[in-house]
């Protein structure tokens, strides 16, 4: 029954977005209001049908309806309810359905934010977005159909991938990434619409920027949560391995970040239109590439599902979308016209933004090259290789430090013409702060060059950011005699976009510093403990008290109990474990992490030999890891500050009321 309903909903969505793609184009070319109305309705039908199909699948999962093929594939009566819910994205066909769900919501959002506005671009944007929808619903209806009817109906299923069941973070990490990936469809459609309509005004630019900021925020959170999950679950003590699939999520993040900066130039100076739109289009294409790499099984990775027929289809769509983007840029860019306000050279914010874009492009190129190189190599020589982590670390470190440097310089420079002298004056204090931090670090025994560079330039960037945040409020409170706090609130609420950006910057600094410190100074000691024999490990006294089994419906856990003392004071009994899942021959570990502001103590269980009374563990110390997650939270908070919708709908009235208040 659910198979039929679900399939019906998917086919309805396919019909709706096919109609919408065509009527949207007609509305754009003929200026027909009727066609536009039909397109909007089609958008709603498309979105609601896919939301409905996803809810039906969740219902089938929760009621253990094994007559539905996807439920038979990943469902199980013995898993906890939360695992059953998240099973939706535990395998290929379900995750494509989730993709459709998010795309449905995005199209509805696009329909509503453009209703009765932007008459030139809106029909094209709807048409392109639903064109992308045609491809995805085609997948859900065809090769990746999760609603096939299974007969005879099995009594129970195997359950979801154990790695997903192993940690609660799996509830949020994949949907966040999907919201980020799929959300990029909207700015893509908007960018393509600007080119198709031959119009890119300030209002449309702001709209693209806002719709880029939302998926960018989700992507940021998704990537950081993925790192956190890796750290908490996989037991190797790291959060980023430059795994091809991790890179696949990082690439669109890089180009989207470049866009968020160059869009400011476009909005203010009416320049860099072609470049900025290229970044929008490239971001979407990179999300497609990322999905292809994740879902086609071309890589061995934590993330790859089994070999799947979806790969070639995806590659085909990627080729079509790339050709569409390149042709659009080649033939329609001139229609947008050149900017009237030239960029300033020399010591100006304009230059800083240009340099920012160059660095982010270089970063993208570097990661992309390292990621696809093994594929190209394999195609040519048929030998299997991968590009090792040292390549990415060595290439990424100088680029990352240069980006930190720019982050410290850019915000302090004026738009237009600035002078070297005034720049030096505003950068003197942050520069001195950076120097002090470097000197202090050296005296404190830190000698790793990239760690020192990151600390120094990080402190420099932090200094500039703090100055830019507080200086205007200080000036205002002095001039008006207000309290500083009140001035802060007023100043920040007037340009939330800028201050949100600064908060994000502080988050990035926090992550960069933590990452550099952890790379340079993490230590790992493999130890085999003998029962009841205390051992000194990395400055802690650790005693293995014995092993214990714990039974849960969906798994059995073998725990090693460790008493840990620091300077004779007991920190507690830690229980890293190995989890055994049904139908899975090998156990999956759950490490124990004792997190602190300066360092994490990390126990990863390797094996337990109850006969010999021993347990082998990797004991690790990771400095500053807490600051990675803290930086991620700051980035999320900053994005919310910058992107939260204003209460007043019409932006045109805002400056007027603001100046009236003065």
């Amino acid at each position, binding site marked *: 029954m659910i198979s039929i309903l679900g399939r019906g909903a998917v086919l309805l969505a396919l019909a709706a977005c096919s109609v919408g793609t065509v009527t949207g184009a007609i509305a754009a070319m003929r200026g027909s209001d009727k066609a536009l109305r039909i397109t909007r309705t089609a958008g709603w039908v498309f979105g609601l049908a896919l939301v409905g199909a996803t809810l039906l699948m969740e219902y089938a999962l929760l009621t253990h309806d094994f007559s539905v093929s996807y439920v038979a594939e990943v469902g199980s009566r013995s898993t906890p309810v939360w695992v059953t819910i998240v099973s939706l994205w535990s395998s290929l066909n379900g995750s494509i359905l989730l993709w459709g769900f998010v795309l449905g919501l995005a199209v509805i959002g696009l329909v509503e934010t453009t209703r009765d506005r932007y008459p030139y671009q809106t029909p094209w944007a709807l048409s392109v977005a639903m064109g992308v929808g045609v491809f995805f619903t085609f997948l859900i209806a065809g090769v990746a159909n999760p609603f096939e009817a299974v007969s005879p109906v099995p009594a129970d299923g195997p359950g979801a991938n154990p790695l997903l069941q192993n940690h609660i973070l799996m509830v949020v990490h994949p949907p966040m990434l999907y919201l980020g990936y799929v959300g990029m469809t909207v700015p893509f459609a908007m960018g393509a619409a600007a080119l198709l309509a031959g119009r890119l005004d300030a209002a449309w630019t702001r709209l693209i920027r806002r719709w880029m900021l939302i998926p960018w925020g989700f992507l940021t959170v998704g990537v950081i949560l993925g790192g956190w999950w890796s750290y908490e679950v996989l037991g190797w003590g790291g959060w980023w391995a430059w795994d091809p699939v991790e890179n696949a999520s990082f690439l669109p993040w890089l180009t989207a970040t470049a866009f968020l900066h160059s869009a400011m130039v476009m909005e203010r100076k009416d320049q860099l239109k072609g470049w900025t739109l290229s970044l929008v289009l490239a971001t979407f294409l990179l999300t497609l590439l990322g999905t292809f790499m994740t879902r086609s099984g071309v890589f*061995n*990775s*934590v993330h790859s599902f089994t070999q799947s027929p979806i790969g070639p289809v995806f590659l085909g769509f990627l080729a079509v979308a790339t050709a569409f983007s390149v042709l659009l840029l080649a033939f329609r860019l001139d229609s947008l016209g050149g900017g009237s306000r030239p960029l300033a050279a020399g010591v100006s914010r304009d230059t800083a933004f240009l340099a920012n874009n160059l660095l982010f492009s270089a970063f993208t190129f570097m990661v992309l090259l390292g990621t696809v190189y093994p594929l190209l190599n394999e195609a040519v020589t*048929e030998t299997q290789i991968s590009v090792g982590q040292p390549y990415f670390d060595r290439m990424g470190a100088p680029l990352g430090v240069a980006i930190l440097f720019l982050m410290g310089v850019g915000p302090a420079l004026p738009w237009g013409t600035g002078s070297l002298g005034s720049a030096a004056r505003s950068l003197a204090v942050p520069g001195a702060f950076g120097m002090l931090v470097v000197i202090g670090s050296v005296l404190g025994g830190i000698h790793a060059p990239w760690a020192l560079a990151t600390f120094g330039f990080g402190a420099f960037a932090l200094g500039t950011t703090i100055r830019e945040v507080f200086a205007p409020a200080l000036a205002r409170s002095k001039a008006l005699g207000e309290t500083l706090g009140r001035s802060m609130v007023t100043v920040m609420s007037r340009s939330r976009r800028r201050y949100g950006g600064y908060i994000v910057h502080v988050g990035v600094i926090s992550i960069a510093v933590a990452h550099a410190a952890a790379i340079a100074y993490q230590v790992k000691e493999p130890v*085999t403990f003998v029962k009841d024999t205390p051992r000194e490990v990395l400055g802690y006294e650790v005693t293995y008290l014995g092993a214990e089994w714990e039974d849960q419906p969906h798994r059995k856990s073998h725990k090693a109990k460790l008493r840990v003392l620091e300077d004779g004071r007991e920190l507690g009994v830690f229980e890293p474990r190995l989890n055994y899942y049904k139908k899975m021959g*090998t156990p999956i570990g759950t490490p124990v992490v004792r997190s602190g502001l300066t360092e994490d103590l990390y126990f990863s269980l*390797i094996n337990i030999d109850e006969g010999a009374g021993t347990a*082998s563990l990797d004991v690790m110390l990771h400095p500053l890891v807490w600051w990675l997650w803290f930086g991620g939270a700051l980035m999320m908070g900053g994005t919310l500050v910058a992107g939260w919708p204003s209460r007043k709908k019409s932006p045109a009235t805002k400056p007027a009321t603001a100046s009236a208040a003065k």
Partner: protein
Amino acid sequence: MTSTPAAATGSNAGGRRVFLVVALLVAASALGFVAFGNIGENLVYYWDVGQLHDAGDKAVGATIRLGGVVKEGSVDWQPDDNHLEFIVTDGDREVPVECSGAPPQMFREGIGVVVEGTMTSGGVFTSERLMVKHSNEYKAPEEGMSADDRKELYRTVEDL
């Protein structure tokens, strides 16, 4: 560059644009050169025992993911100093492996493993990373095996 506005006109602007394009091209090719060089130095090779033998001296110092089976009766595990030695075989040729760190729970003789490390000039493979494969059935790589099958040989538990 000093703080001259870019609003310059005529041939000056044109010359400037050419200069910018050339500068960008130089920077891009420099980056490409450095990146390719760096990739070349940091490749990880996925080899089986036969390929490792065939590589000869090329294997010394290179980062290698070696796939094979743990030979029966070859495991020597010293818990006190966390030292593990065993032989990886493809049923025909063999490589002695030394690992620092404990063997994973499922590690045993006859199981398929992937070890990441490098060859020493003494002919011993040293590794700090040992992964056990999904199943105990290990098929030795054969001539004419498809790339996908070969890839499957290196799919480990951690890769899932």
